[in-house]
């Protein structure tokens, strides 16, 4: 099975980058799950949590307020203004 290549950036730094099995983002019209081999998508993000499940099953979660996500041939790019780590998810 293929994996997702995730790049998670804020306007001034790179938050998370690497291989992931699943990514859940808070799209403007509802939560959106991203799995490998998804069709190319470009979505606007609302407020909520971005949850990245790594290849080894580790989950990291960050709160974001607005941004965008683009998915194209298993390359996921998440761009937001600011991301705060959610402690409870660790």
């Amino acid at each position, binding site marked *: 099975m293929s994996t997702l290549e995730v*790049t998670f*950036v*804020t*306007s*001034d*730094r*790179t938050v998370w980058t690497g291989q992931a099995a699943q990514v859940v983002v808070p*799209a*403007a*019209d509802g939560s*959106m799950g991203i799995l490998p081999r998804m*069709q*190319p*998508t*470009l*979505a*606007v993000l609302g407020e909520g949590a971005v949850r990245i499940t790594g290849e080894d099953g580790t989950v990291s979660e960050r709160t974001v307020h*607005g941004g*965008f996500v*683009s998915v*194209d041939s298993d390359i996921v*790019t998440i*761009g937001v203004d600011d991301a705060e780590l959610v402690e409870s998810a660790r």
Partner: protein
Amino acid sequence: MGAQQREYKQRIGSAQGMKKIFKAKEMVAASRISKAHARVLATTPYADALTQAIGAVATHSQEAQHPFLQADRAQSGRVAILLITADRGMTGSYSHNAIRTAEELANTLIDEGKTPVLYVVGRKGEAYFRFRNRDPHRAWAPYSEPELGSLGQDIAHTLTADLLSEDPETHLDELYLVGTRFLSRFKQAARASRLVPMQLVDAEDHVPGAFPLYEFAPDAETTLQELIPRYVESRIVNLLMQSMASEHAATQRAMQTATDNAQTQIDKFTRLANTARQAEITQEITEIVGGADALAGSGRTER
């Protein structure tokens, strides 16, 4: 010690003091360049992601439109120039180069029959225009280095609001950025570039109507509405940070020159002080010899 010698010693002392200050300032600037440059580089992934996303919308959807993308936005004839200068002095020609580039641009715009409207960042630029009785439309000064990100957001919001405004008094047709690009530690260049209206260059030739599967959530129009202000903001923040890095580099170079000049002064005055000392000694010897000769010539034998 003679008066002349004392004067030279004083000058040497003050030049040595200044040299220490310049050297310290140079080292501070040098250490800040790399930090500032790292901040510039840190914004690159976000900017790349945005550029790609906007490219995707442009390539895969035709109906998407945005006021910033219209090639002809002429409405009020007002054209914004965002000029980024330094807050502090001792930066060599850094602020001056940026101001000159902005002036050249303003003159070109006036020749084209447009009205340049100035938005200035930094005290140096603000003071320049205020002194000439051409108050900038809006000035952000002084600003602090750690808050460049939020400053950029503030500037972007103001400019976006004015660009989209319907009121002919505030509406802006175009937006130019004038700042200093950080090409390398040793090379920076003041440049003017147009940000709005934007030109989308789609790399691949696509057949109209035959889109690959590409989904936009909620839709292409909304996505573009969201992305373009972000792009404007990211470009402004990036230029602010590049200018900051360039300012440090310019400071370092200016202070290096100042240190060298102080050393030249020290060398010069040391030489002059030595000459003055020699002259004094020579004069003393001449006086003694002259006195002895005068005594010998007077015919007196006892001392």
